[in-house]
């Protein structure tokens, strides 16, 4: 049995302080048992038992309603129907009719995730998320998502299913007619380049076996991606930042849709670990310059024409490891200023050499974010000035910031700033004539969770901008933080913060009066796994903003999950 501390490490990737000695999380083992029991039942394996008097609702609700049917997508939802007393036969019929939609009754993918485990007067109450997907008979794809409440009883150490209630069920069918929706075409676009063949096809895990620590390698190197035009042909080019010791790559978008690596001749092949990059016209001369968030500071490269880059400035900051960056003209002087987010205060922290306080929901020992005001408009060329304090952005500025997004949320014509922070409160800085006031609390967007990303869009088309914040959903966290014995010394309110921490993504609807309402769960966009970029985009040209979430933490090629 793993002790509490270990389990918590596996929940959030950071040790949680002060786990009471002697507290054991039997529920973790139970969750494993439940998972294997429900899986066994659904797969109709022998030896998996139902308790006498077992009752269930049809796994595929009888009153399934079509809620949406457009452009090849059909969405049906339903809740638990009448509870029926059935035996193993009835159960297997229910499974059969659940999966009947699939070609040969077989989904290609399925997942059982136990996200609540509670013992209530001898009954084990569990909540399980079921997912499946595959081809439908005919042509098209289908996916199912359900939440089951399963109650179990133990007999001679074995789990027997007592009842199964379908708390939520959604089925989505895609009949695009001519084929799939998104198709991976990176190889077609990039495959002609050596850098694709030898470098980009392989992940960090591979490179950590090859690039010495000496060159700055560390486990947590994560990079984003930028698209933008650097050679003035109107087509978006692609910049791919890279881990330490591997050159960043710049690809020019050719007329035939492929992309050609010009990193070396363009002067964009930096080896310093680069997490984020921006293609923006910093000197207002009509071409895309580059701003790179590296381990060695913020590199500013001027595009001197035709995608030839020359290093013009290196912006140094008190905290060294820049995480992410955004560009904006915050003061309306017609040049682009840069806002830099920092996760850790000290260099080396990202490499795990020193740690933060590890307080999940309220860490206040992160790096200080910086706003650099551009000197271009004043004729000072590539000089940038740190104006963080001057404009009031030093307020609540010691969080572990991973991402920022600018938007005029109050429709007053200037750019406000939302900052997503890991381990604690996020910040909303309202721009009042070039001065910023932190109003997250009053606006209702504190979202004290593991903030990873922020994205704005008017998803309800009411004329103001709503906000989607990437967090993480952890079923282990959900299992543990909801138990009574989890840190009994904490006040309920604080326990709530822990539960909040692992609940998933948040969507904040702008109410138009300067405040927001959190609607992630009711809109169905909360449970989105270990989320990083969680962003709005219209995926089907209907004018309504959809959502994409990039997911996953560390996948090793050949081992199970920690």
């Amino acid at each position, binding site marked *: 049995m793993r002790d509490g501390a270990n389990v918590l490490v596996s929940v959030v990737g950071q040790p949680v302080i002060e786990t009471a000695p002697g507290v054991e999380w039997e529920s973790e083992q139970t969750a494993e048992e439940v998972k294997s029991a429900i899986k066994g039942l659904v797969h109709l394996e022998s030896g998996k038992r139902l308790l006498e008097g077992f009752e269930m609702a049809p796994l595929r609700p009888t009153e399934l309603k079509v809620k949406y049917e457009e452009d090849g997508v059909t969405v049906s939802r339903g809740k638990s129907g009448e509870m029926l007393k059935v035996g193993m036969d009835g159960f297997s019929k229910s499974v059969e009719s659940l999966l009947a939609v699939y070609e040969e009754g077989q989904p290609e993918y399925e997942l059982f995730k136990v996200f609540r485990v509670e013992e209530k007067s001898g009954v084990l109450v569990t909540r399980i998320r079921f997912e499946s997907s595959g081809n439908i008979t005919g042509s098209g794809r289908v996916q199912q998502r359900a939440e089951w409440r399963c109650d179990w009883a133990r007999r001679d150490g074995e789990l027997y299913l007592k009842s199964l209630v379908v708390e939520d069920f959604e089925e989505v069918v895609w009949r695009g007619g001519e084929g799939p929706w998104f198709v991976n075409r990176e190889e077609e676009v990039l495959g002609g380049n050596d850098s694709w063949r030898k470098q980009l096809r392989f992940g960090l895990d591979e490179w950590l076996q090859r690039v010495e620590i000496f060159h700055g390698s560390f486990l947590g190197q994560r990079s984003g*991606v930028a698209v933008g035009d650097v050679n003035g042909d109107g087509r978006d080019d692609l910049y791919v930042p890279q881990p330490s010791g591997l050159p960043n790559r710049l690809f020019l978008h050719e007329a035939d849709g492929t992309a050609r690596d010009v990193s070396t001749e363009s002067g964009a092949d930096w080896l310093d670990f680069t997490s984020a990059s921006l293609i923006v016209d910093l000197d207002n001369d009509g071409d895309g310059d580059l701003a790179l968030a590296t381990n060695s500071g913020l590199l500013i490269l001027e595009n001197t024409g035709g995608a030839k880059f020359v290093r013009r400035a290196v912006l140094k900051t008190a905290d060294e490891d820049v995480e992410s960056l955004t560009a904006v003209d915050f003061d309306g002087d017609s040049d682009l200023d840069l806002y830099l987010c920092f996760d850790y205060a000290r260099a080396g922290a990202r490499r795990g050499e020193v740690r933060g306080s590890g307080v999940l929901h309220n860490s206040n020992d992160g790096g200080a974010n910086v706003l650099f005001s551009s000197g271009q408009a004043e004729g000072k060329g590539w000089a940038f000035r740190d104006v963080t304090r001057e404009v009031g952005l030093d307020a609540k500025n010691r969080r572990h910031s991973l991402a920022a997004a600018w938007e005029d949320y109050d429709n007053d014509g200037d750019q406000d700033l939302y900052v997503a922070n890991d381990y604690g409160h996020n910040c909303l800085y309202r721009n009042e004539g070039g001065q910023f006031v932190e109003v997250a609390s009053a606006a209702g967007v504190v979202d004290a969770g593991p903030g990873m990303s922020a994205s704005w869009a008017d998803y309800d088309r009411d004329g103001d901008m709503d906000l989607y914040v990437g967090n993480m959903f952890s079923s282990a966290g959900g299992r543990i933080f909801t138990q009574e014995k989890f840190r009994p010394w904490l006040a309920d309110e604080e326990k709530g913060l822990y539960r909040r921490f692992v609940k998933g993504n948040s969507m904040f609807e702008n109410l138009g009066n300067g405040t927001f309402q959190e609607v992630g769960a009711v809109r169905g966009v909360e449970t989105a796994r270990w989320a990083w970029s969680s962003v709005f985009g219209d995926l089907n040209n209907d004018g309504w903003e959809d959502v994409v979430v990039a997911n996953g933490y560390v996948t090793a090629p050949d081992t199970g999950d920690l």
Partner: protein
Amino acid sequence: MTLLRQGRSFSGRERHCGFLNTGGGRRFADISEVSGLSLPEDGTGVAFCDWDQDGDLDLWMSNRSGPQVRFFRNEAKWPGRSLRLLLEGTKCNRDAIGARVTVMAMSGKPVTKTLRAGEGYLSQSSKWLHFGFGENEVKSVTVRWPGGDEEEFSGLKSGEAYRLKEGEGRAVSFSNPGVEPVSVIPEDLPESGRTNGIVLGIPLPLPLLKYESNAGESVELFDQPLGKRRGLLVNLWSAECEACLEELSELADARRQFEAAGLGVIVLNVDGLEGGKKASREAARRLNGMRFPFFSGNATESLVRFLQLTNDELLVAQRPLPVPTSFLIDQNWRLVAIYKGKVLPEQAISEMERLALPFEERRKGTLPFEGRWHFAPKNFVMLNFADRLFQRGFFEEGRDLVTRYARFMEPQPLFPGVLSNAGIRCLDAGRAHEAREYFQKALSLDPNRVMALHGLARVLSENLILEDQTEALKFARRAAEAGNFGNAGVLSTLVQCLQANGEEQEAMTVLERALALPEARKNADLRDRLNALKSE
């Protein structure tokens, strides 16, 4: 952290999600699977653009796992069309970042978007604004430029792309017919991005190492095999590994090249580690049978552990060394490269020659690809390495390293810390004499180093042979003072020394002081220890 370095997963294989706004923004449907987005990879960044210019949004995603970038092309045939707009500021910033664009359709609610640079996580989407329309027609397009000026553009048609220039009130059609990406599925893709060699950015000084001769004696690698040669290739092999046997004959065939280059070769068999003497003898017979022209012997368990540790110090990914693995060592007994899998003779020889190159030039060849550094690392890894040797119980090796390289290490500010750590490891391992030496050496470089003072006090008070309670008390006092009486462990030693010297009263005062420290409040073990002293 350690498990991750050893290649374990953590929240791995989590699939990407997609949610479809099913109208009105009231509810989203999970389309992760049917959309094709749900790859079980470690995705981080997302950047939208209409890469193929077919009128719908595609996206680029960055991954921590391989491949490091994915292009998700939107290949559905949507009945709905889009309007794509690229803004150009003339009064405001040229990119028009911050501009708010509202598009009215003939029917339905307006669509509003803001042009941003940088959002989501670590990513930047296209500056082409993309408006989906359903099957509607455009009525009007209004741009609120950063700075506040509003401007209306007319005559735009859905399904088209336009450039809008601030102050011109006229949209210029941008035509670039959509194209299918050419299908250049490349052939002969390498199975790994790694070449087999890890060439060290700065060669790493090694301690003296031993192997077991075929006669079963412990022999210094440094002596005969290196001798007066310019370098030594140490190869680990197993008779059960086909690649090893091939490699052995390739090495043998290259005897003249090695001799001309002054590079020695020694092959050490690992089969005895599990198979005992019999396996070693069998391996030796095999070499005799092929008249192997170089030195040979057996790798000891300690040598293999040492080489593994060295590998783990150099790389974040700590993976078991495969056979064959070869280590290239130069004449100054520094590790130059590690080759996992077969090493080509010319590979090792040319690496030896590259040692003569100036630092910057040589370093270029130590990375898999060319590129430029803004701030090239120049870390000195030797201290960490020495520290790790003591941590892992390689006392002889550690001692050899800190003595032989004292001249290089002494100027390093971290060196006294390494020595104090070494002292503590030795003390804990019952090597009190060595411990005393390391503490003394540390104090000669940094007379107020608390850990070293404390360590000496412990040696002198705890060790039966070296015991000198008067001296111990002196060092314990100095340690407490140097640490401003803030370290409960130090104070606990001081209390013991005071008691041993009969200074009961002062001992009680210090004890109370120690118990009042936050450290003692948190640490139950320590508290118990202090309380036990109190009751004595």
